[in-house]
């Protein structure tokens, strides 16, 4: 097999999988974000620290995100809407999965592009119709992948990436959420 270079260190991931089978406590991670209200419906969110492999850790640098709403919502549009961040998470998680699975299967990728569309009936969040839910009605992801592989192999990459995706799982299955006042 020729050497495939998708830039994913699959060996490190496979080694971690074996190591964590023996020490499941080290596999327990906590991801964190902190938000600060600015004005109107504009919020700034920072992400830096997390917990994993038994200790507190941090990203190389802090990331700052602006969340707001567009002008049709009578807002200032200082950033994308919160529900669009879910699309950001889903697209990036599935794409990371495609790259990792391709590396593991010896498939050279040349380009991986995706468009993500979430259909949203905003009567829910406006309280205009109690039968309409607040969140997305459905989400559609369309991948456009150029790789040294058959169409079936590419479809299998995308299927396996969904199977192992944290964000896909978080969006398709219920999660127990606690919100409290400190």
């Amino acid at each position, binding site marked *: 097999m020729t050497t495939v270079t998708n830039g994913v260190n699959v060996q490190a991931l496979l080694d971690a999988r074996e190591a964590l089978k023996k020490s499941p406590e080290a596999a327990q991670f906590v991801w964190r974000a902190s938000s600060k209200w600015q004005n109107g419906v504009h919020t700034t969110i920072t992400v830096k620290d997390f917990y994993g492999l038994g200790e507190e850790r941090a990203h190389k640098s802090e990331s700052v995100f602006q969340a707001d709403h567009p002008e049709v919502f009578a807002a200032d549009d200082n950033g994308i809407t919160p529900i669009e961040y879910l699309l950001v998470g889903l697209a990036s998680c599935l794409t990371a999965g495609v790259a990792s699975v391709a590396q593991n299967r010896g498939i050279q990728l040349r380009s991986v592009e995706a468009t993500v569309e979430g259909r949203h009936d905003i009567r829910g969040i406006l309280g205009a119709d109690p039968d309409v839910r607040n969140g997305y009605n459905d989400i559609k992801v369309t991948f456009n992948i150029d790789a040294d592989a058959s169409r079936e192999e590419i479809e299998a990459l995308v299927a*396996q990436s969904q*199977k192992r995706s944290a964000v896909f799982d978080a969006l398709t299955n219920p999660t127990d959420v606690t919100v409290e006042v400190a």
Partner: protein
Amino acid sequence: MLERGEVANSWRRERWDSLRLLTPNWQTRLPGFPYQGSDPDGYMTVAEVTEFIERYAAFSRAPVRTGVNVTSVRRADDGYHVTTSQGEIRCRTLVIASGACNRPVVPGLSEGVPPEIEQVTPFDYREPGRLPDGGVLVVGASATGVQLAAELRRSGRPVILSVGEHVRLPRVYRGRDVLWWMDVSGVWDQRYDEIEDLTRARRLPSPQLVGTPERATLDLNTLTGMGVELVGRWAAVRDGSALFSGGLRNMFSLADLKMNRLLGTFDEWAVTHGRDAEVGPVERFEPTRPPASPRLRIDLRGGEIRTIVWATGFRPDYSWLHVPVVDDKGHLRHDGGVVTDSPGMYALGLPVLRRRRSTFINGIEPDAREVIDHLARHLGLPR
């Protein structure tokens, strides 16, 4: 040879009425005891399997002691101390052949189901008439789940099937039973030490197959055509409602892709082994049709669902085995049937014990020969 009940006990007591073997009759063979009936392509009923095993017990003159229930196995100086309902036994070696399906698995979320809904497992289920009238939610889409969903739908009940990861297969491929292909192409002979992800192979759900005189395929498209509603994997109960995963389409994609890869290996085998002309033309089947918008939530208190059938798999019961050889998932630790942590202890009849055919009736012969070879060497017997 200890048997807690009668010969073929689990076939007599732990099977539903309409069940037939998934394997065609010509594959239903035990050492020195082939199928000799007039319908080699048919599938045995439970009564016929029971009779087949009874006849084998007589043919093989196996020293079966029926009505002897093992309640405890402990290590003793040079072997094992076995406590049974009929007294104590000391032995140097021990073969555990109690199988992988002693208890139905029922997920913890069953505890959140309202009490007015009747819950049954495949061990309780006999036939549709014994369930309350009204809607049924069948959970799990392995062979058990699809068979019970079809049978309950035919009884006139509304049926919803909750589908997680599953194995799709056509009953007949290119004119031959799909299990003929598994047998002759060598898939079933793949050894446990050649399989890359053995843990996964041993956990694989049973394929969506049914044995019927018509040799009909029973996949999710068949069920959709019968009016069975498909929903995703059951993820939680919240506020009296069942919540199902929105990942159903990917369950279909994974199963369709996997089936097509398997059929591709059959096609390749037919060409390389010069068998292409004796079978029908290459076939590919319609992808699994996703429902237009699968329901994510079903109110369990509204009366729509009267019964839940848990077709969520089975697990072995080692509660009587007081030797530390069971892992934290409740599975026996063994290397191809040799329980290496406890010399003189062996296992037979577990999934992919030594090869993919291990849990099929015809898979016992090669496994038993190899495991008993090891056992004989352990005892220092000449072979």
